[in-house]
């Protein structure tokens, strides 16, 4: 059920600007999309290798240099497609839910 949604959310978070992996996790947690950090790294690497993401090394005061991720032009285009798909999907769901609610209220 969550297939693809995690990717979509990650891309949405990154689209707001350069961001560090653990901050992505924090945002995902806030959205109650619970994942452990270990899951995120393969996902980011895959998105990066598909040309959707790029990263910069940024020196850190608290340890090794950090990778800060960015959307590429391709990534932005792909996110646009996903937006379209998601809007269709949510329209379908909302319509179905509305129909059900209407039925329920009619019965009541």
């Amino acid at each position, binding site marked *: 059920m969550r297939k693809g949604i995690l990717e979509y959310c990650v891309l949405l978070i990154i689209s707001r600007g350069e961001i560090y*992996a653990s901050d992505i996790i924090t945002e995902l947690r806030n959205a109650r999309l619970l*994942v*452990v950090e*270990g*899951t995120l790294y393969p996902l980011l690497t895959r998105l990066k290798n598909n040309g959707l993401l790029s990263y910069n090394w940024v020196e850190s005061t608290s340890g090794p*240099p950090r990778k800060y991720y960015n959307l590429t032009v391709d990534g932005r285009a792909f996110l646009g497609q996903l937006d379209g798909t998601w809007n269709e999907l949510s329209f379908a769901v909302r319509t179905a839910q509305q129909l059900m609610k209407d039925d329920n209220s009619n019965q009541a």
Partner: protein
Amino acid sequence: MKKTTIINIGNSIIHLEEDAYEALTIYLNEVKAHFAHSADDFEIVTDIENRIAELLLGRMRGDNKQLASLEDVQAVVAQMGSVSDFAEGAEAVADETLRERSFEPEFSEPQPRKLFRDMDNRVVAGVCSGVGHYLGIDVNLVRVALVLLVLLGGSGLLVYLILWIIMPKAETRPEKMAMRGEQLNLRNFKKNFDEEMAALDERFGPAGRQAGSFIREFFDAIGRFLRVLGRILIKIAAICIIAFGFAMLLTFFIGLVAFLGFWDYEVSNYFPMNAVDEHLQVPIAITAFVLFFIPVLALVLFSIRVAFTDRPVNKITSFSLLIIWLAGVGVGVYMAARVSTEFREVAEFNRQQAVKAYPAYRLELDNTELFSKSDSVRYGLGNYPSDRHVVLNTGDRPFVSPNNMRLEIVKSEAGRMILSENYSSNGRTFEQALRNAQNIRYKFVQQDSVLNFSPKPRVGNKERWRNQEIRLLLQVPVGTRLRINRKVNGYIQNYYIWSCLNDEEHAEREYSNWIMTNEGLKCLDIPESSPEN
């Protein structure tokens, strides 16, 4: 008190308590095994390690301590998530291939197998089971095939011995797994380990004692003996090579020093250095030194390694030796080309010399040499009034060049005795070659009826060897008698003069007697034998 371990993770140095270190190692190994079949495994694992380092350092800084404890590691691992959490995540990101591969290694492509002797499943030395593993066929089939080969002419025995020598034992667990073509990951590691324990139990149990064990022990002893013997023989051979090689290196070195020290005096007048122009001699000597010295040096170094240490030959050393040697080859080819252009053209000319008429002649070899005026001065003979001096006994000089005089004896068509001398030489151009030929000096002296031939032509001291040659054609009128000294025999090209000396009574005679007829030379000493060729 607790033991601590220092690790380098994500380019950071972190001190860990021992239990924390163990927990972290296990976790990282699991992570590596999990991502081992993903194309980006290195990058992913590096990212994870970096993050772990950052989290650990952050926790240590927060608690203001120098050392990470087990709790720290557990907390970090909880934050990163366990490998099973990754699987869930992997499902969530639809990374199906990753999941399939890491959880069903039994169906993955087989690894290329390696040829090892299987010491756990053997009768003699584990060769058959090793071959069985390698080819992926039943061990017993291999054994039957081998026994058949032994029975059919015994070639199987030889094959077995050779394989025994060249196949290494599978000793470590990774080697055993490579032998079976299993993939190197944690799961297979554990499986392999369990099987090994089971095999061990079986062997030490009473049912495990097989009839093969006596044969096995017997051949084990022989194998150990042969191996030790082989190692000793290799060492002895290596030491011999080292000693011999050192002697050769020393010889080359002394040779080079001697040449560089004395080249303008003697050595450069000997073959083959006398073919080389003076300005090329030092470079050529150094090049030749490099070409011969380096391979021997490499052989000696290699033998030293074999005999005394097990370390492989230092790469930098061997590469620089190879490069120097190849450079030497290049320079050598260039030099050889330079020298060989000096031999490109050939020129020759003839000179006829009348010989005073006598009914009979004696042919002698004359080792004395004529010196020109300048040479006489050079050798300290200049006090004599004549401009030509004769020195005796120069025939046993060291070998200078392959330039012996050649003599042909033919019937004179003109009816008189004529000696024609043919001078020839090589040179870079035709003019140069002709000049070289003109510089050949050949001494032929007639003393009444005695004809004295010098064995070699002489070339001026400054002249280089350019394949200067002298060919003599002695035209003898019919009816003339020749008395030929046996020393001259070797120089005569068109008759086998020894045939006239080789009868039992006269084997040691110094002279053979001949007469020129219409059919050519006839031996007078042994009338019935024909001397012609």
